[in-house]
């Protein structure tokens, strides 16, 4: 086979490989390249975060507006302290907003859903959301059910 | 420049537990046709490999052009091999490239000649072996004899001062054999190429060799011109030269007494 043909074919092969990689990256894993999205940090404390992990999503009305960047244990109150980055152009979140840990679909992962409150004062960099709702833990649910506390 | 092109000095070489050479010394004079002969498995091909630097002797030295082969660096060995041509028993052409590219291979590796010159040289070499018309064919399309002739063209591509032939006559029909004999003789007479032939084909080899060395059991058991060897006193050499089935190399594989073994069958 001619060298030139081989070069072309091998080049196509390598290109196909790169395209496959791109497909897997974008189409399959939903990898998004966010060019320098400006964000501001907000904190919330929960009794139980369930299966929430770093990089979990933060959403308002189902629309993703941020990501969880850090999870740690507050050793004084023994509550979970969750740090989130919210997109800077979503800057009218009132101070009495509720942060709840919800589940995606039936088997999905956990995410933080924000329900906007009524106050006119908005959250700024470093503020804390005080009204929080922990994740629903299956065992507690079953316990309540068994004890007829429903 | 000394008179001997190659000198083997007291070389021993073993493969595994088998002693292939046990203190062998011989000398290959410049411009002569020297044959190294002996029974199968006596290590004749190994000798060529030692000369070419593919193998290193356990003890002793191999000198080529007054250079100790085992002490050469990679670059020096590369330069040395430019002057050595080797014809392998099976031809050993590269099966994935054409006849032309096979012969051009050493030229492209060792020289910076432009493609037009290489083309001319390749055609000249192929013409010398009578296969210029086959330059576009692939080795798989050639017969055994043609394969070997192309391999010969490839090994003389760089006009080496020394040629080594590994069993050049084995497995060829009489015509092809005649062609090879003539080519070897011509190369030697016209270009003065020192030729080392390794073979167990007595008749053909004796017809062109100036000197014959006979190696058996790891030792040199005979040396001299074909006539001298034919009249040699050693019974081992005589058996080899005359092709006698029984002699110092026994006909029978070691076994028990024949009568006893046969009669055993009656008792079973």
């Amino acid at each position, binding site marked *: *086979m001619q*060298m030139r043909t*081989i*070069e072309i*074919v*091998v080049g196509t*092969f*390598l290109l*196909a*490989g790169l395209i*496959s*990689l791109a*497909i*897997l*990256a974008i*189409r*399959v*894993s*939903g*990898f998004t390249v966010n060019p320098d999205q400006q964000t501001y940090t907000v904190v919330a404390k929960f009794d139980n975060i369930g299966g929430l992990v770093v*990089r979990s999503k933060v959403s308002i009305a189902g629309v993703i507006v941020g990501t969880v960047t850090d999870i740690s244990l507050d050793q004084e109150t023994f509550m979970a302290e969750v740090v989130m980055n919210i997109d800077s152009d979503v800057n009218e979140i009132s101070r009495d907003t509720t942060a709840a840990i919800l589940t*995606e*679909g*039936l*088997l*999905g*992962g956990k995410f933080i859903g924000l329900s906007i409150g009524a106050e006119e004062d908005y959250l700024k960099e470093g503020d804390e959301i005080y009204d929080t709702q922990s994740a629903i833990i299956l065992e507690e649910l079953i316990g309540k059910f068994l004890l007829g506390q429903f | 420049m000394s008179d001997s092109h190659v000198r083997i000095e007291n070389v021993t070489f073993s493969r595994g537990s088998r002693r292939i050479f046990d203190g062998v010394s011989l000398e290959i004079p410049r411009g002569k046709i020297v044959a190294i002969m002996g029974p199968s498995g006596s290590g004749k091909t190994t000798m060529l*490999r030692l000369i*070419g630097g*593919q193998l290193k002797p356990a003890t002793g030295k191999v000198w080529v052009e007054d250079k100790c082969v085992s002490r050469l660096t990679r670059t020096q*060995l*590369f330069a040395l*091999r*430019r002057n*050595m041509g*080797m014809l*392998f*028993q*099976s031809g*050993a*052409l*590269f*099966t994935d490239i054409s006849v032309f590219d096979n012969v051009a*291979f*050493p030229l492209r*590796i*060792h020289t910076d000649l432009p493609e037009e010159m290489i083309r001319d040289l390749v055609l000249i070499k192929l013409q010398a072996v009578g296969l210029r018309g086959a330059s576009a064919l692939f080795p798989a399309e050639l017969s055994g004899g043609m394969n070997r002739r192309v*391999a010969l063209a*490839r090994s003389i591509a760089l006009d080496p001062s020394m040629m080594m032939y590994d069993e050049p006559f084995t497995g060829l029909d009489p015509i092809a054999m005649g062609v090879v004999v003539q080519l070897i003789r011509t190369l030697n007479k016209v270009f003065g190429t020192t030729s080392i032939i390794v073979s167990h084909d007595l008749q053909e080899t004796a017809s062109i060799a100036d000197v014959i060395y006979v190696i058996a059991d790891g030792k040199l058991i005979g040396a001299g011109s074909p006539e001298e060897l034919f009249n040699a006193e050693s019974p081992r050499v005589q058996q080899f030269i005359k092709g006698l089935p029984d002699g110092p190399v026994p006909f029978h594989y070691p076994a028990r007494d024949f009568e006893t073994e046969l009669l055993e069958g009656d008792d079973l």
Partner: protein
Amino acid sequence: MISRLRKLGQYLLSIMSVLGRAGELWWQAVWRRPRLSNAPLLMRQIYQLGVLSVVIIALSGFSIGAVLALQGYNQLVKYGAESALGLGVALVLVMEIGPVVSGLLFAGRAGSAVTAEIGLMKATEQLSSMEMIGVDPLQRIIAPRIWAGFISMPILSLMFCVVGIWGASLVGVNWLGVYEGAFWSAMQEGVDFETHVLKGIVKSVVFGLVVTWVAVFQGYDAEPTSEGIAAATTRTVVYSSVAVLVLDFFLTLVMFNF
């Protein structure tokens, strides 16, 4: 008793010497002497090992993706969770089945071809004559093949995954009626590039290295007879397949559990 120990000792020693020879081959061919002027050789080998394997990879990938979708659907539908089909199939393919199965197929197709080719070159003294002409066969024959395998294998594994997911989508969405939106969105939400896809790629690179190494060594070390070459080819397929499967376990352990 002593003789049995001695036999065991000899056997272990021979394994050590094989590993040593294989390691030396690797060292000489890959590290000590890479040369840019051999680029055309490398390209030809990528063609032989990579491009010519695409068909078998694509066919297998598609079939396996389709089967996974079929079986996956049957199980998930019992829990009403069939919308997670895309996610499940994608994860399985990208993390495990993709690299492993394409590794096995590569070993069978490309690995055996390389072993047979090199073994034959050894048997017909082509390697020897190349050396006598002054060319290093390690550089000209062995090294390009090792690099070609190293490059081709991850590409083939990626293609396998892509075709597999496509096959799964055809079966799941177009045939079995899983909602297209759910199929893809669950997959996109659940499959993470770094945790899943990248680790799969790492696996395929390792597999490519190992398979090509075994193939090249077996060919180089083969007995120069027709039986010798046949035995070497069989050994290549067996050893590299087992190596892929065993390495997969350890790689998974290290990458996903720590």
